[in-house]
């Protein structure tokens, strides 16, 4: 694909903006701040444009002015709720936006709770119980022993992790307040699984960041080599 002027200008800007972001290694400085502020501003502006053209206009404005009476009446509901929500800007009219806020909070909570229960909790519980289901394991056509060990480790990790977050204790007179000994033992094992999980998550975060670093350095090397190639005749 031939490189156009816009591409060239964009590439040069990207190069310098990348250098500005890399300057954070030396500490907080105005170059880094400029790059960050520019990124936030551009992202916010683009988000606003997308919201207007992709949400408000097609879902609110167009139905209000459509010849369909039913669409107009239906569009009045989000219109009224949106206008009430705008009253949250001013303190003396903020309470008028409570119905809209309540509707948003209620819908979000219902969706989240329903999805968590039906989409994660119940299926994962079922999957955890099926880890030691020999009938199902045999259908997988894999090493049964390894599957059993895998299932046992998963079961052990699940139980010990739950035991780690068990903080209720029973108070007894003339005795220090502490968890039972067997719960403490299980919590210790669960602490190991939690630490391994945190390490795995950290490794994934580092891998993602390393990939971004590699990509940026690759871009800069590519651009510099391109300029050098253009400037230095072969």
């Amino acid at each position, binding site marked *: *694909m031939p490189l156009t002027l816009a591409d060239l200008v964009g590439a040069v800007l990207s190069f310098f903006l990348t250098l500005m972001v890399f300057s954070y*290694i*030396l*500490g907080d400085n105005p170059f880094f701040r400029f790059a960050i502020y520019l990124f936030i501003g551009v*992202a916010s502006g*683009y*988000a606003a444009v*997308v*919201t207007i*053209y*992709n*949400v408000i*206009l*097609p*879902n609110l404005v167009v139905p209000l002015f459509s010849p369909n009476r039913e669409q107009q009446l239906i569009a009045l509901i989000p219109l009224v709720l949106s206008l009430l929500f705008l009253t949250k800007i001013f303190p003396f009219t903020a309470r008028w936006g409570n119905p809209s806020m309540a509707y948003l909070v209620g*819908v*979000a909570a219902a*969706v*989240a709770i329903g*999805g*968590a229960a*039906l*989409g*994660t909790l119940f*299926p*994962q519980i*079922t*999957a955890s119980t*099926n*880890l030691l*289901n020999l009938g*199902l394991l045999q259908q997988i056509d894999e090493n049964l022993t390894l599957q059993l060990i895998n299932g046992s480790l998963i079961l052990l990790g699940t139980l010990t992790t739950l035991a780690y977050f068990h903080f209720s204790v029973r108070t007894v007179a003339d005795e220090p307040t502490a968890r039972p000994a067997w719960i403490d033992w299980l919590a210790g094992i669960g602490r190991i699984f939690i630490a391994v*999980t945190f390490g*795995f*998550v950290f*490794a*994934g*975060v*580092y*891998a*993602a960041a*390393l*990939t*971004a*670093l*590699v*990509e*940026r*350095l*690759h871009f800069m*090397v590519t651009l510099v080599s391109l300029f050098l190639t253009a400037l230095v005749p072969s």
Partner: protein
Amino acid sequence: MCGRENPAELEVCQFCQARLKPLNLSLPAEDEAPQTADGIQPQEEASEPEPLIVDWLRDMRDEEETSSSSPEDLEGNGEEQPLDWLDGIRLDEESDSESGPGTENEDDFPGGETEPVEEEPEWLERIRSRKAEDWAEAEVVEEASEPLPDLFEEGEEDVPVTGSSAEQLPDWLADIHLGEGMDLQDEQETPADIAEPAPEPGQEPVIESTEAHDETVVDMASSEATGPGSAPSLEAKRDEELPEEGGMPAWYDEFRPEEPAEDLEIEDAETDADLTPAQIPVWLEGVRPVESVAPSPPLRDETERKVESSGPLAGLRGVLPAEMELSHLEKPLAYPAKIQATENQSKYADLLRSFLEEEGRPRPLGGTSSHPSQAPLRWVIAAVLFLAILWSLISGSNPAPLPPFPQESQAVHRLISAIPAEAKVLLAFDYDPGLSPEMDATAAAVVDHLMLRGAHLTLISTLQAGPLVAERFITRIQDAHGYQKNEQYVNLGFIPGGAAGLLSLAESPARTVPFTLDSVRAWESGTTQSLPPLQGIRTLEDFSMVVVIADQGDLARAWIEQVAPSLDGEDGQTPMVMVVSAQAEPLVRPYYQGNPPQIQGLVSGLRGGAGYASLTGRESLPNLYWPAFGTGLVVATLLVVGGGAFNLSSGWLANRKNRDGEER
């Protein structure tokens, strides 16, 4: 007795229950009392009360009489106003005193009979003589004080003490101070001569008290014993002065000339002109007050001399001083303000004070250990990484082989390979531009495989920057396939509402995203047809595959929770494949490894993308980054291991040093 003021109508003091008014004896009218030339004997042998009582009572009566309406009231009936006869007695005593002592007649006494006077012991006579001398001085002083009221003086004049009666007064009676107008000494009658009347047999002994005197009034009225100056004594004297029935004493006539002479019922109307001092019997001497025999002057003298000048009893003589107690007021003791504490207590107090002072004193901050700046270490680590990666990118001398594809990536490859040509695939770009390098590299091989299969792509995103990322991905990264907008792919843009928007999309995609990013109606309506990538699509189940490219585990989970349940259709379940970042893999993998799995394929991180690229065998973006990525991983691993080892060793050395220091 108590010296307090009482109303005039009271007969008994309301405070000390002392008798204020003498008992009104049931005697015949005073007019009937025979008068004798000698008058009623002021002193009798049977009279008991002492001159002290006579005086205070006299004073009180004076005050009452002065406060009374008129002197005529005093001339009332003797029974109604017993003071009258008292005054009369006083007058009679005065007259007797003027006439001379010793005019008493024993017959004047109520008792009529006189006991044989016992001879006094010598010591008693000495005492009386001494007392008489003292009282003589007191009387002189008293005479210099305010004079008694006229009435009293008049009455006193009417009560002369005859010389004969004075001479015949017993010693104890002579000792009694009669006060002004009743100075028996002038009448040749010393107080010593004024002896207590000898009680008759059977009579109660004389008790020097007002109450006792009051009680004995009745007795005295029936007996010969009368006291000078006292109510019973006067009463008795009045009785005694009645020599005969129908006759009135002289003093009475002098005092009340208008009154008809009434003979007082005097049992013994004998007047003993030659009354000799009675001999005090032994039993009487035993109950005699000490004051009367004490060598020291009686207290009565002082009180009689002193005239009360303040209070309700001002003007009275013989009143107990009200300021007696007040005169003994002393300056309050000055107690030391310093707390008397022992040495140990003082020591503890000083210790506590030092603790409190130390609390308020700011403690000097200890020298904080200066930590070395972390900037050089950060520079070193960055420099090492940069150099390693740049060296790998520039030189390309260490081309690392692509990793083996994992099982989950193989599942994705299998599914994509199974879709028909020009299949409708929903492609969700839910990652931010900041992580686009990794996500672009991870999803590049997968999307390339889809485009190789000729699939029509429907781009959508729950992030506001997602449509832009998607558009760039298709046009820049996959530009080799030459996909045309709204022909091979359509960008539906942004879904608002997060999870709620996904649920709405799952229920009705046409209603949720009716327009494309270019504001072109995407779905079929009455007038227009849907775009080619969306033809035949009414629900999400109509898609051949759903591929979600996400950089965060929450976004991937939202797609799984809200959209995955609606992908089960009559023709089977529409597979859902996840292309996630390496940081989201721990949260998404359980959905793939679960039984039954909720997602059918998983490609995670650059490693997964590189592995998928090895499956397709096509040069893709992961191939460019993999060698440098590997170098960076190696350097990072070395840095983590080296730093951990250094941290452990330094901690161990520090603990060892502390242990050695403690042992020393």
